[in-house]
């Protein structure tokens, strides 16, 4: 990449990206200086270019400096994307190619290019909706050109990406769904195991097909490779791979069921991967009680 820098009407360079970064670090070049990349039609501020670097070093705060902990995919993936602000407030930005569509959890869109068009679909059917369990999915299509969308789930926490390739199967807790490519089949009518989540209005999604799947955790995310036997409190289960056997039971006998606060647990057996979240929503729901406004009845 050859970059020409313009300052005060004079052109300098061309420089390599590496050299530009060094100049920014040392103060020889300012993030507000304009740079022209050979082959591009526009001049952009240097801060734009340096933002694409893996390590930009300390930048002088203009409106503020860049956040840390960004994840860009290295393994198999269908879309270009990055996950920023990991692990506490993970934010997904996906590039959708022209005239293609991305499925996104309802109300999760935070930013998008103006040529993104949104359509709402309801998954799970009316009966599920009436039963208090629903998954609304929005479809965002890039019209007339590629477009970008920034996705923020409502709960704080981490995010992960899985690329499904035909034979893969992932079971996902319904409120953990963030987004997926059009070729990924998100089955919400799958009965599988009812009562997995002890009446929290959650259900298990079965995801198969081909493409990208993103899901979030409430709290931090811990990936546990299961090889034998592992026990997880069901409210902390986010996702698990298809090959595992699972059994829901209470922990430590009847007394523990009511008194220990752990409730139901899921015993996983076999080989596979379980994603768990370090926090669970009902505890937070209980915590909010004193802060809720009182109804006027």
């Amino acid at each position, binding site marked *: 990449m050859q970059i020409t820098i313009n300052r005060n009407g004079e052109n300098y360079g061309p420089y390599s990206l590496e050299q530009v970064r060094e100049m920014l670090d040392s103060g020889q070049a300012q993030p507000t200086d304009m740079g022209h990349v050979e082959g591009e039609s526009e001049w952009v501020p240097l801060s734009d270019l340096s933002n694409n670097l893996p390590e930009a070093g300390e930048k002088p705060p203009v409106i503020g400096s860049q956040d840390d902990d960004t994840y860009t995919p290295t393994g198999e993936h269908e879309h270009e994307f990055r996950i920023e602000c990991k692990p506490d*407030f993970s934010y997904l930005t996906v590039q959708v190619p022209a005239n293609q569509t991305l499925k996104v959890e309802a109300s999760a869109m935070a930013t998008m290019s103006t040529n993104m068009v949104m359509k709402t679909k309801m998954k799970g059917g009316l009966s599920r909706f009436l039963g208090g369990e629903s998954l609304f999915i929005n479809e965002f299509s890039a019209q007339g050109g590629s477009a970008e969308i920034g996705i923020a789930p409502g709960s*704080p926490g981490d995010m992960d990406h899985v690329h499904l390739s035909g034979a893969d199967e992932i079971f996902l807790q319904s409120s953990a769904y963030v987004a997926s490519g059009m070729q990924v089949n998100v089955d919400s009518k799958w009965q599988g195991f009812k009562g997995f989540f002890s009446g929290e209005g959650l259900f298990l999604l079965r995801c198969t097909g081909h493409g990208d799947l993103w899901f979030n955790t409430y709290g931090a995310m*811990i990936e546990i490779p299961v090889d034998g036997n592992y026990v*997880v409190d069901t409210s902390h289960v986010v996702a698990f791979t298809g090959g595992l056997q699972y059994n829901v039971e209470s922990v*430590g006998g009847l007394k523990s069921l009511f008194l220990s606060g752990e409730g139901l647990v899921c015993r996983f057996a076999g080989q596979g991967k379980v994603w768990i979240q370090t926090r669970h929503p009902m*505890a937070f729901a209980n*915590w*909010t009680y004193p802060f809720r406004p009182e109804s006027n009845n």
Partner: protein
Amino acid sequence: MQINITHRPGNSAAKVSLEAGESITAEGGAMIAMSGHMQVETTTHKKDQGSILGAIKRLVTGESLFLNHFTPSGGPGEVYFGTALSGDMMEYNLNGPGIMVQGGSYVASSPSVDMDIQWQGFGKALFSGESMFLIRLSGQGPVILNSFGAVYPIQVNGEYIVDTGHIVAFEETLNYEVSKAGKSWLSSILGGEGLVCKFHGQGTVWCQSHNAGSFGASLGPNLKPR
């Protein structure tokens, strides 16, 4: 016993690795995941001793009535602990002076650590809105505490002020009093700081950066009425 605290300070979880026969005591509801062969015993009191009175005292501090004792059988095992509210966790090794812990901040401790509830008296807590009870931890061994916000220590050498909603724990060598934040009562109340805790002496105070009450108050208007 090995304690590894991950994902600090935002969504901390504590991974405790136990040798066969070793035990860890944790408040009810703290367990996220554990090895398949972990034995769990639920009591209202410290393992092998105590009475229900201790449990009830714990309830008023904001902790759960119940304690779980985790012991792996037939080999080493691990257990992960998390908390209801997001935040930081810290490990502290007791070896000599005890520490006073704010209600709700206790997560787990080795069975060799003694837990007692201490009433702070009317003068200290009546207007502060915080619990009048503090948990006193003493003895030997590791304890795990949680906080809302990042934990930062302050070495007190003389005097230091900490807003009452921001205290996680402090060494019992410190004295403290609840007083007004500013020079005048008007300033303290109007400025929103209200009452603060003034620490005297020598010792460490562990503070939490954020205040759960302020967060709840910001979220409250958006929540479904009760």
